[in-house]
């Protein structure tokens, strides 16, 4: 549990990593800032029939086609009441663009790498599967998202 992602060398300053924080459900999450391309509002989402349930649809973001991932569905949380004014964090993986749909965006935190702890044993299984460890913040836990694992959708689901 020493590496957060392949591309986060830039954000690792003297043993510190910068995280973009977001809330999904009641939980706070952190994404290594080096993996985050942008944050945008979801507009004109096109549903994709027959797609895995985690994939909310596709949309046009400045001429690029972005695949929107419903993080609540991905984490096994209850569905959002409606899709209006959803915010997404744009990330890139193997040249493809994805938008992780979140409930709210938070601040950017600079956290020491050595304070990151491994997943608590009783962490929810679905959460644990996409978590790269946790940081203890004042009053709450920040789950560090392993972006590549979040995107492991459809590939193995269909292969089975």
């Amino acid at each position, binding site marked *: 549990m020493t590496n957060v992602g392949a591309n986060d060398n830039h954000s690792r300053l003297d043993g510190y990593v910068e995280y973009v924080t977001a809330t999904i459900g009641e939980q706070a999450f952190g994404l290594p800032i080096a993996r985050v391309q942008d944050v945008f509002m979801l507009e004109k989402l*096109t549903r*994709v*029939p027959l797609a*895995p349930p985690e994939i909310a649809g596709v949309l046009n973001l400045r001429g690029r*086609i972005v695949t929107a991932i419903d993080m609540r569905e991905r984490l096994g949380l209850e569905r959002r009441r409606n899709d209006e004014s959803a915010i997404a964090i744009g990330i890139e993986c*193997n040249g493809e663009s994805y938008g992780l749909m979140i409930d709210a965006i938070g601040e950017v935190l600079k956290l020491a790498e050595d304070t990151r702890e491994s997943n608590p044993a009783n962490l929810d299984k679905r959460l644990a599967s996409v978590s790269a460890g946790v940081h203890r913040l004042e009053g709450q836990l920040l789950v560090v998202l392993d972006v590549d694992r979040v*995107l492991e959708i459809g590939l193995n689901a*269909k292969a089975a």
Partner: protein
Amino acid sequence: MDDLLREFLTETNESLDTIDVELVRFEQDPNNAQILGNIFRLVHTVKGTCGFLGLPRLEALAHAAETLMGKFRDGMPVTADAVTVILESIDRIKEILTDLEATQQEPQGADTDLIGSLERLAFPVAATRADAAAKQAAGTLVRQALERPLRPGEVSLDELERAFRETAVEIEPAFPAKEPDGASAAPASAAKVFRDVDDETGAGKLASQSIRVSVNTLEHLMTMVSELVLARNQLLEIARRDEDTDFKVPLQRLSHVTAELQEGVMKTRMQPIGNAWQKLPRVVRDLAAELGKEIDLQMVGAETELDRQVLDLIRDPLTHMVRNSADHALERPADRRAAGKPETGTIRLSAYHEGGHIIVQIADDGRGLHVEKVKAKAIANGLITEAEAAKMTEAQAQRLIFAPGLSTAQAITSISGRGVGMDVVKTNIDQIGGTIDVKSVLGVGATFTIKIPLTLAIVSALIVEAAGERFAIPQLAVIELVRAQANSDSRIERIKDTPILRLRDKLLPLVDLGRVLELSAGQGSNAASGFIVVMQVGSQKFGVVVDDLFHTEEIVVKPMSSRLRHIGMFSGNTILGDGSVIMIIDPNGIAETIGAASNANELGETEAHSASLEDATQAFLVFRAGSPELKAVPLSLVTRLEEIDCARIEMSNGRHLVQYRGHLMPLVRMNDGVQVRGRGVQPMLVFSDEGRSMGLVVDEIVDIAEDKLTIEIASQTPGVLGSAVIRGKATEIIDVGHFLPQAFEDWFRRKEDTRASAQRVLLVEDSSFFRNMLPPVLQAAGFRVVVAVDGEEALAILKKDREFAAIITDLEMPGMDGLQLAAAIRDDSRTAHIPLLAISSYASPAMLERIRQAGFREFVAKFDRPGLISAVKGLCTELVEAA
């Protein structure tokens, strides 16, 4: 050095490809000095560059090849052996180049073997002189050979002279060229002449007119243009909403420029399809030599241009298909002679534009596809069941060759049949949004037709709506649009749950797009109206029901996210003018769902051998049972129509019975939808046999109709053979054989038990309809029936098993017909005693005479059920008495 080497590799590879083609041409036309000149120049260039770059191994080999070709030019006769050795040398050079590309070093090794044979061919006289023990014959041969070309040589003296002059010039600078700078800086007049010659012969001239641009640059340019097209579309969409905007005029201008730019950039990517064919003459030549066949490869339309991306993707499939044709399709000269064809087989490749597509055809005049073998193989591999195979049309069965794991080659050869079959070809063509189809006539040949888009980047698509979502359907696959309306000629009919459109008297299977994409809940639209996009994939036609149709739009296909790529219904996605993302439907994906659902079939094409069936009309009893759709059964199978007073219907042991002519007759309901009425009269169809009767309860007897019978769509439902058009209406044809055992479980078995094995009959019938219809009739009469689908299968059965009381065969069958089968049975003393009975839809008096002469004892019309039974019984009794 790196750049230089790369340039050298690219250029040399291109030259070598050209040499391949030219050499094969040259072999066929050895007196063509121009071709020889081309080859010579190319090899010489390769040699020269190798020397310049310090690649001694390549240089030595090229030099030896050049020397031999120089001899050709000097008048030595061109032999196939010599050309083979030169081609081998070219192959070796290619191998070395591949290594060179990988390691940037010339691989170790020597080519003394090839150089040796090249030299032996080039200097036979020298060899003879050096070797005192050499045969004098070789010398005379050469001398003779030297004499021979003098005649043509004298005629084109000018050509010869020029050739000599060039040789003299070229050989000299070959040495200075070895030293770096030699060719360019040496003031030697010889070198100057050499350069002039080179310029004159084209390389220099071409260079001034074209430049090399890396493919990446063009790709990038194309991407940018695609983005520009999208942005333009978006702007146009905005302008459309705003009527009077100042943007209108400049926007129009922008639109035009964009369109022209798009066209221009596309042009830079266009290459003649001949580039993909370049290797084929060589491939075919080698194959012909290896297989001992004579093959004429004709190429038409090589100049037809298409996008290089598409070109790259079809190159391998095309090569594979030509190999297949040469290897499997074309027969050996002796076989061709026996079949009355010219000994030289022809493979004809042609390409032409049609709409926004390119059609490539590969036609051969070989043996054609053996449909039954294809079917047998498909059954053996578990791709289809025998029942499915029996119901397939000829075209469907031919298309089985595109199924994975199906190669009908009996022997695995070094050329093809390595388990990589037509399925790979189809997959490759599917990938580029193209379609492939095959038409074949046994013994005459086969034609493969490939339809591919000109380009992959920008395609024209029809925007449709289903279940509130919009989708793009590639225009390539769309044939026509139909608006279906209730109460009109074109309305959506339903047979069971399968929606069908009757389009110009053909049944077109329909799919509801919303339902296929699982957007609309369960039942979906049961409406008889809607928009239907008639599509064609291969020769499979079907209709896609959508809620609404919009415009067509030029769309830029963008690959789907890897997380969505497993969804077979979409081939990609794109951004529309209004900025929204839209999924692009993959016609192949839709076609597959139809294939699975209803055993799709095609319009416009009918089974070749069902002609006899089509010509004969027959009477059908048309009725309704359980649903408003029409059902029918051949009238000849029905004994009687009855309307029975419901008061007479009794229940016994949970079954409906009626006293009928002194017996109890069980009643069977056609399906669960049919209710046995409580009052009034109950219509039913009565089927009787040997004192036993059964009543099939229906709702309403509609009519008796005369029509041709063509089962358009085979059915999976028990009790239904399939659907046909009868008097212009889609109608289900009922399988009576399914209902008889429901009345008397032992309807068929009872008689088998009581009769001896002498009562087995062999039924040979290619039509699946009669194969389904006749056995129940015969079984009901107490015979055990063994069925063969054609003459060959019948003979195969008879080899193992001759215990038949009679053989009943159809006369019209593909391959071996009934008369030929009869002759084969008569010729075999072990089977000659079995009485033969011919069945056919139609026979003229002359035909009847031929039937008698062929040894048939009886002839019965196909639908004459009592006649058939009595004839078979007659034959069998005779046999028993005789025994």
